């Protein structure tokens, strides 16, 4: 052996629990896939078995390995070019026929493989029994029954992989179907399907029991029917926002209290050091205050929203939303799957943009990417909540106030969805045209999510990742904000100069220069928009925290805000440019400056137009 470790590739269809197998093997934290494209980039990990290291690469879940979508290209190329010592092909024991079609394609590229029959418990509950030894003889590779969620069969799997890697077990060349000799891909797949069906007839016995299918059928009747489908969907999202809004409130307050106490210690420390005033200002009032603000405003809602969203994701409900909404999206020339990327965008637009990989057609993907920031993300929720609380509720933390905020949020999101549809229609009719879009979406069986594991995983994985990204950009932004408020060229602070410059434009769209300046300064992280506004209004030199929504209301009204201003603020919060992280992600995903610019300008111009309209109409009616 020349290398000190073995190279393992993990391949399989989507929805077969491939990522669960990966997590179980490596013990590394990575999110389980429920639809195509969750494993967005190649995830890596390793494990030790009998003093040997096994390096695993988790390939994206695909239906085929001939390049049709980007993921398939990645998976196919990897299997073709990287001579793995062993490929673990994860199959769904419950849908063996299709899994085998994929397995045979993979085998034609690399015959050193192990078939992992995952979801065996689900299959058995569904009355499916597989003779794995017979199947192993037919395929010429070891076949291991597995239930990754319950950690069953993992040791057997590792042993089989070790046998194949060390050469103790030699897999014969798989020659049932010669891959490249077939005239067309469909022809090739048809041939493989016939072989797969024959294998299944030989190895699978079915009893009449089909509990999993029945349960899914029953739930689908409820969740996709005319009468109950949409109300349940709205209810699920209302509940999600409600829990996020109410639940995040207290931890946010505790965190900001904790941070402000520590700020005293920090500035005391600088005093002891006799540090120059400007340095202390930049580091404590600039970087530290901004950072702590972003963390205390952003962390609690994210720590609640992301795990809850992951639970919904893992249950298998999201593809049903795409199924329910596809008709509306089809009318706008896109696919129901776009609704999934929009739902992800509510969590974080950067995540939503990455999620657009699930869309197969380029025109659909571009439309979805460009319109993703029409969905207000978690970073913009605090602004929406604060403005709503200050202007449209009694400004108190009470049950009716929370109801109103949830209702306003739902209205805003519904409007954002309608707007996304309208803009998508325009884009697919005039800009991104490439024929009639198709749609083929797998609806996986409903699965009971693993509550604790999912929460832990999404906390460490998504929440901390997004927070980390926000913190990285918030720190330098804090320094810039402090400088704009504390540099006084010509006796007036830079911030005042900027707001004055922007005042005419702000006034034209029913707002003012301060709001525009705050939105521009909030480019790295939208969470700091309100504190910057308050700082500018109060001519302060540090970010200001207000004691409550009542005080915020007073400050804003004293600056001439009316209900119409507040409505314009809500509109411009939803519709301005995406944050810097999202812009970067869009550029990375599309590789096109043009698309990135479109994604930047489209929501901004829509927002400016709408705000100008609203403020002028309000003006006519004498508001």
């Amino acid at each position: 052996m020349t290398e000190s470790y073995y190279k393992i590739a993990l391949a399989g269809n989507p929805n077969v629990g491939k990522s669960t197998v990966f997590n179980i093997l490596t013990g590394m934290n990575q999110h389980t896939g429920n639809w195509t494209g969750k494993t967005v980039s190649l995830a890596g990990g390793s494990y030790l078995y009998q003093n040997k290291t096994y390096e695993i690469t988790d390939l994206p879940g695909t239906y085929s390995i001939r390049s049709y979508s980007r993921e398939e290209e990645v998976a196919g190329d990897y299997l073709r070019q990287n001579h793995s010592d062993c490929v673990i092909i994860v199959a769904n024991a419950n849908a063996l026929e299709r899994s085998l079609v994929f397995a045979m394609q993979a085998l034609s590229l690399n015959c050193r493989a192990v078939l992992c029959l995952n979801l065996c418990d689900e299959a058995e509950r569904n009355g499916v029994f597989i003779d794995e030894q017979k199947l192993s003889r037919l395929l010429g590779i070891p076949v291991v029954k597995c239930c990754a969620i319950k950690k069953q069969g993992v040791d057997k799997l590792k042993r089989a992989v070790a046998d194949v890697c060390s050469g103790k077990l030699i897999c014969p060349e798989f020659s049932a179907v010669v891959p490249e000799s077939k005239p067309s891909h469909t022809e090739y797949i048809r041939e493989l399907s016939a072989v797969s069906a024959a294998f299944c007839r030989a190895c699978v016995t079915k009893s009449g029991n089909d509990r999993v299918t029945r349960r899914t059928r029953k739930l689908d009747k409820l969740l996709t029917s005319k009468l109950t489908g949409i109300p349940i969907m709205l209810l699920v999202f209302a509940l999600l926002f409600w829990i996020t809004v109410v639940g995040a409130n207290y931890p946010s307050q505790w965190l900001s209290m904790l941070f402000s106490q520590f700020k005293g210690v920090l500035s005391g420390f600088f005093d002891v050091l006799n540090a120059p005033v400007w340095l202390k200002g930049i580091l404590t009032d600039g970087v530290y205050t901004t950072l702590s603000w972003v963390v205390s405003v952003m962390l609690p809602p994210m720590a609640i929203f992301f795990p809850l969203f992951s639970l919904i994701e893992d249950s298998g409900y999201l593809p049903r939303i795409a199924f329910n909404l596809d008709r509306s999206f089809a009318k706008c020339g896109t696919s129901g799957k776009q609704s999934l990327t929009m739902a992800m965008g509510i969590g974080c637009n950067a995540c939503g943009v990455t999620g657009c990989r699930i869309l197969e057609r380029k025109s659909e993907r571009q439309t979805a990417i460009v319109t993703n920031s029409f969905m207000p993300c978690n970073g913009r929720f605090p602004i929406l909540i604060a403005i709503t609380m200050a202007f449209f509720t009694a400004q108190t933390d009470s049950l009716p106030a929370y109801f109103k905020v949830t209702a306003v949020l739902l209205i805003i999101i519904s409007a954002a969805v309608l707007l996304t549809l309208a803009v998508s229609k325009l884009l697919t009719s005039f800009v991104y045209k490439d024929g009639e879009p198709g749609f083929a979406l797998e609806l996986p069986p409903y699965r009971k999510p693993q509550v604790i594991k999912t929460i832990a995983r999404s906390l460490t994985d998504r929440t901390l990742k997004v927070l980390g990204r926000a913190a990285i950009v918030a720190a330098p932004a804090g320094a810039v904000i402090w400088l704009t408020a504390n540099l006084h060229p010509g006796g007036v602070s830079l911030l005042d100069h900027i707001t004055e410059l922007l005042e005419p434009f702000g006034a034209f769209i029913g707002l003012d220069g301060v709001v525009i300046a705050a939105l521009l300064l909030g480019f790295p992280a939208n969470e700091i928009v309100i504190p910057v506004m308050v700082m500018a209004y109060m001519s302060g030199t540090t970010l200001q925290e207000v004691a409550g929504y009542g005080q915020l209301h007073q400050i804003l009204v004293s600056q001439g805000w009316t209900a119409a201003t507040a409505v314009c603020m809500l509109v411009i919060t939803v519709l301005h440019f995406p944050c810097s992280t999202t812009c970067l992600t869009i550029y990375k995903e599309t590789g096109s400056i043009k698309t990135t610019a479109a994604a930047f300008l489209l929501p901004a111009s829509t927002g400016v137009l709408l705000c100008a309209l609203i403020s002028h109409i309000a003006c006519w009616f004498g508001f």
Partner: protein
Amino acid sequence: MGDVMKHTIPLCDLTMGKRAVIAGLDDTVCMSRRLADMGVVKGNVISMEYKSMGGDPAAYRINNTLLALRLADCKKIAVIPLTEDCYD
């Protein structure tokens, strides 16, 4: 062949709860390759599960997986209905 043709119907005309054998699909179907990868190939058995709230798309069971397909694509998939029900 003529006999088979007589008995084929487009997939979208398959009644709920009925099974059918796929007889062939028009190559102009959007994403015919993708459909093939998901099991929609000649000779496979497909059953109609239910429609979405607007009637389009609809969910079909094939190889024990549930697949949502649009009406426009289903029109171009020819099937031969089987007489027995797929579930009671």
